[in-house]
């Protein structure tokens, strides 16, 4: 029962209208081969959950500039003018979420919580439509968990059981998304034998990972 599959096999889990989580910070930590695979496959009307929409031609930015995304749930779109243009023309829905809240909502889904209380966004437009709860005299917003059908990850080192180690700032949303999607696919920059990653330093346990695709690197 090997988890290592072809790009096509892995991406068979993404069809039109699938909700997809893709990590990355302005492209760093984004699985480029899987993103390219989505473009080649030509799926559309995806709901994309990501930190930012990167730059034009970079990371998830490539998905934005094609007609693939129906809705994006994201914290920052300023570095990719195409996102704003499509939003203003009504071609794509943009749900802006504070970055810490986005991270915590994804973690919350993966950890089986019903949500959490955060001070972030109290007194701003972010509180619209949300329940406010007072704990110890302080007001918080109740933020609900956010899950997806598929998560596409990028691991610097991945062993054949799916244990992942991320280098430097590429970690960002990867370990959170690994727990919050029904199907989890990782692009392995370097595929190593089981046991090569110290069990102490595994950042995403292999039990969260369904499929491994070898990266191009």
């Amino acid at each position, binding site marked *: 029962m090997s988890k290592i599959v072809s790009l096509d096999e892995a991406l068979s889990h993404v069809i039109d209208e699938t909700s997809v989580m893709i990590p990355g*910070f302005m492209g760093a930590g984004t699985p480029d081969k899987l993103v390219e695979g989505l473009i080649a496959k030509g799926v559309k009307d995806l709901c994309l959950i990501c930190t930012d929409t990167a730059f034009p031609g970079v990371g998830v930015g490539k998905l934005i500039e094609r007609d693939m995304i129906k809705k994006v749930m994201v914290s920052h779109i*300023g570095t990719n003018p195409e996102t704003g243009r499509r939003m203003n023309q009504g071609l794509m829905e943009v749900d802006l979420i504070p970055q810490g809240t986005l991270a915590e909502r994804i973690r919350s889904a993966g950890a089986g919580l019903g949500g959490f209380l955060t001070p972030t966004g109290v007194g701003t437009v972010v509180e619209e439509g949300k329940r406010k709860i007072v704990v110890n005299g302080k007001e918080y917003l109740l933020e609900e968990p956010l899950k997806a059908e598929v998560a596409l990850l990028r691991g610097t080192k991945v062993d054949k059981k799916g244990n992942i180690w991320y280098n430097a700032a590429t970690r960002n949303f990867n370990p959170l998304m690994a727990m919050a999607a029904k199907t989890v696919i990782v692009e392995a920059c370097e595929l190593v034998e089981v046991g090569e990653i110290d069990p102490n330093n595994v950042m995403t346990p292999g039990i969260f990972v369904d499929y491994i695709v070898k990266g191009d690197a």
Partner: protein
Amino acid sequence: MNVREKIAKRVAQMLQNGDVVNLGIGLPTLVANYIPENIEVTLQSENGFVGMGPDPLNGQTDLDTVNASGLPATIMTGGSYFDSATSFGMIRGGHVDATILGAHQVDQEGNLANWKLPGKPVYGMGGAMDLVAGAKRVIIAMEHTVKGEPKIKQKCTYPLTAKRAVNTIVTDKCIFEITPGGMVLIELASGVTVDDVREITEADFFLHKDLKNGQE
């Protein structure tokens, strides 16, 4: 030293030895260049590390280490990496001693508007709302006016980033502290008078009893 550099230098002097600091995009980034040599400050990068070092030299780019703007960055010995939930736990949980940000508007109650301008393209709040909700001290570093218009208001009119969040405002003209009793002028830049500040500040403020005059 231009106006923006002067502001950055003054903010850097407010930091304490051992502080963990998050610098926003733009003017706040310049603060890193003026941290006094006798103190140690740890820079937090909200995309997932502490111990951010100087910009990498040309040709030494490590694509895996980027700052919160997605630009090449470096990490100092003793720094460490973590995921985004931990990064914002650090920020929200009060483990960052100071966050230094720019602003479109600040008001005398400490309300802050720095993520959205009416009629301009939407950028998104990124991590700014978490930073101002969680950091122990929120320092706004900005030019006192924009195109001659006061940015320090009685009440913010632009969409808020957070309510009652700002502790200190450092501009090219002066420094205000925001206290529960109101906004207090604590320092004037060299050659600036209280009347000068009054003229370009829409907010009401008190004068600190030990109002300082800045050095050139």
